[in-house]
C-alpha cells in the first residue's frame, strides 16, 4: 500500500464516522417511516383545531330552525354559509354569538344577477331595483323559509 493511502485512509474513516454521527442527530426520529418526510408531521397537521363545526352540530340545539329549513329551498345549505364559523360558539354559546346577516349585499353574494350564474342553478334578482324601498332582504323574506313573506 502506498504511504499516501496509509495516512489518508484513517482520515477518510474519521470523516465517515463524523458524517454518520451528524446524520444520526440531524435526521428527525420519524423521518422515512412512510416516505421521504417526517411521519410525525401527519399527526401534527391532523391536530390543528377546527373553526367550522358542521351542520350536524348546529341542529343538535337549533332544532326549530332546522325543522323550518328542512322543507325550504335553502335546505341543502350548511348553517355556517350564512352564520360564519361556529366552533367557538359550540364551545361557549353565550360569549360567542354568530352573525345573522340578511342585508342585500350578503344575500346578493349568491342571488344578485350575474351573467356567469346559471338561472337554473340559482334564483337571481337585481338587488338595486328589487323592492328598493326595503333595506334588507330579511325585512320580507325569512331566510329559513324563503317564501313565507313577512308583512
Amino acid at each position, binding site marked *: 500500500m502506498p504511504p499516501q493511502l496509509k495516512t489518508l485512509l484513517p482520515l477518510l474513516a474519521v470523516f465517515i464516522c463524523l458524517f454518520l454521527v451528524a446524520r444520526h442527530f440531524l435526521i428527525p426520529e420519524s423521518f422515512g417511516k412512510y416516505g*421521504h418526510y417526517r411521519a410525525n*408531521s401527519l399527526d401534527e*397537521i391532523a391536530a390543528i383545531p377546527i373553526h367550522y363545526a358542521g351542520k350536524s352540530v348546529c341542529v343538535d340545539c337549533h332544532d326549530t330552525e332546522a325543522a323550518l329549513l328542512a322543507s325550504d329551498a335553502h335546505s341543502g345549505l350548511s348553517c355556517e354559509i350564512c352564520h360564519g364559523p361556529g366552533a367557538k360558539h359550540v364551545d361557549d354559546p353565550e360569549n360567542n354569538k354568530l352573525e345573522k346577516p340578511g342585508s342585500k349585499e350578503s344575500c346578493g353574494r349568491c342571488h344578485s344577477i350575474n351573467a356567469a350564474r346559471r338561472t337554473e342553478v340559482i334564483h337571481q334578482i337585481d338587488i338595486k331595483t328589487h323592492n328598493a324601498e326595503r333595506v334588507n332582504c330579511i325585512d320580507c323574506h325569512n331566510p329559513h323559509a324563503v317564501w313565507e313573506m313577512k308583512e
Partner: protein
Amino acid sequence: MGNERVNETRRNFLRKSAVLAGTILASSASQPFTAMIFAANQPDKSKPWYAIGIDIEKCIGCGMCAKACKSENDVPKDPFYYRSWVEQYTIKNDGTVSVMSPNGGIDGFMQTVPEEEIFKTFFVPKMCNHCYKSPCVQVCPVGATFESPEGVVLVDKEYCIGCRYCIQACPYGCRYLNPATETADKCTLCYHRLKKGLNPACFEVCPTGARIYGDLNDKDDKIHKFLKDHNTQVLKPNLNTGSKLFYNGLSSEVR
C-alpha cells in the same frame, strides 16, 4: 493486430452492457420502477385516496369557499395569500379574455362587463390539485413537502426551510410563503378536518354542491359517479402533473 484488440474490447463491452441491462430488467420485476408514474408512493389500496371534482356549471361565484378557507386555516388576510380562490372568466364578443378575481372572490363578484359585450362568462374555483406526480414535492430539497398516504399534498412546517422552490414549481400557483412562519403553505384539503371525520371547509360551505371530494379507491364513492356522469378535464394536462382535481365544463380559455 491493432484491429483484433479493438474487436476484443468491443465484444467485452457489449457483453458487459448486456449483463447490466439484463440485471436491471430482472431486478425491476421484483420491485417495479414506478417513479415515472407516481412521484411519491403508489396509493395504498387499504386507505382512502382523495380526489376532487368541481362542476363549473353549478358554481355561482359566491366566494364562500375562499372565505371559509381563510377562516378555517388562519390564512393571512392580505389579498395575495390564498389556498382556495375563485376566478371569473369573461370572454367578450371581440374574443378577448379577461380574468377577474377581486380579493380571491372572498367579497363576492360584481358584474363589471356590460351584458351586451359578453360572449360567455363563468366562474372557476381554484385550489391545490393534489397531484400524484406533484412538481412541488419533487423539487423540495429537504423532504418538507410530501404526499400523504391519503393522496393529500402537505407541508411539514417544522421541517420547511423556506427556500420557495415549491412555490415556483407549482404550475397552478397554489402555494405561498406564510409571512408568519416563513415557510411554504398551501391547501391541505383540510387534513385536520378529514381526520376528524368532517368535510373540508370549502366543501362544507358550498351552497350549490359545485365541489365534491371523494375516495378514488372506493368504487362506490360519489367521486366515481361524478367522473362517470361528466366529461371531466384537469388543468394543464400537458404538464403531466397527475392532477386529482377534475373539472366539469372546463373551457379551453382557463389557464
